């Protein structure tokens, strides 16, 4: 069991370094309404996990492992709720609403493939090509091509 003060220090250190990534991870993996919930789940899981942090890995690797697995758990839980909702109401009534920025974003992101969706959201988060490349393991030339294709797709759908 880690010393409580040391735990707080490690937590703050990890968050100071990865606060931006925490937001990116949440936005990439949860629908708009659930961003904050996912962030909170990751933070709480990380906080609890720190008790077992034995410096077998770097703090950053430890943080990302916790975040990745928490996202997985969160998605599984969300899928389950979604499936249950669909089972209750197979023909839900949709209320017409003025499209806002976030719903356009979510709708368009939903049309993209898994990798393109992540690229798209990182692009919106103003990440550099180098940062995207490091996070996704895709080279920068490929990323440029993908973003240009995404821009064209967006134009074709929403322009006019």
């Amino acid at each position, binding site marked *: 069991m880690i010393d409580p003060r040391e735990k*707080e220090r490690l*937590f*703050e*250190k990890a*968050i*100071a370094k990865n*606060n*931006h990534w925490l*937001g990116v991870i949440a936005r990439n993996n949860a629908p708009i309404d659930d961003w904050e919930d996912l962030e*909170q789940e990751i*933070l*709480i*899981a*990380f*906080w*609890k*996990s720190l008790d*077992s*942090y034995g410096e077998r*890995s770097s703090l950053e690797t*430890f943080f990302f*492992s*916790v975040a*990745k*697995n*928490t996202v*997985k*758990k969160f998605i*599984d*839980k969300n*899928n*389950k709720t979604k*499936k*249950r909702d669909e*089972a209750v109401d197979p023909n839900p009534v949709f209320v017409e609403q003025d499209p806002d*920025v*976030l719903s*356009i*974003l979510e709708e368009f992101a939903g049309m993209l493939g898994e990798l393109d969706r992540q690229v798209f959201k990182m*692009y*919106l*988060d*103003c990440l550099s090509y180098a940062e995207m490349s490091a996070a996704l393991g895709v080279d920068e030339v490929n990323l440029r091509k993908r973003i240009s294709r*995404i*821009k064209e797709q*967006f*134009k074709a759908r*929403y*322009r006019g």
Partner: protein
Amino acid sequence: MELEELKALYQQAKAAHPRKDPHAIMLETKRKAEERERDFKRQQRTQILCGLFCLVCMATWYRREGPLLANAGLILMFLCLAAMLAGSIILKYRLRESHPWLPEEEFLAEQRKKIAARIALLRRNVRWFFIPSMLGFLAWQAGLSHSAQMVAALVVAAGLASAGTFWFYRWKLRTDLLPILEDIDRELESFRNKSK
């Protein structure tokens, strides 16, 4: 709308929710984690107390000089309920342990084990404890030599309770546990395929 325009609007929306400093995040997370811990303990306490209350009530119904069949039924019911209560409390404590820092595949395997344990508990409770406890209930009531109509009504009530529980068990499995298990199995399968 151009994508650049959307990006600018998105940045504005993001700026409306500025990120807090690490110390504030730490304090808030610590508070929420403690709150969850308290809630969990409170729920556990309530569950244990309710279970104990039921068991004590049943114990007070026991009469040493009562008919053998009634006493046997009551003891069977008591033991089944005690086993169900103990099983779910032990499992809840066991399931709390989570290791999200493990490699993805190991973490998924751990999650799978937890879901499998919940399914096993549900199955065990329904098949081996709930149905026998209903039989115990019938034996208890039959031993108290009620009228034939009363016994018939109790049989119907016990049958309905068993059917309801069985239906709940199937519903819980279908909508709650099996979908998660299938998702995890799919992911584990993809890991295995990748490693081949």
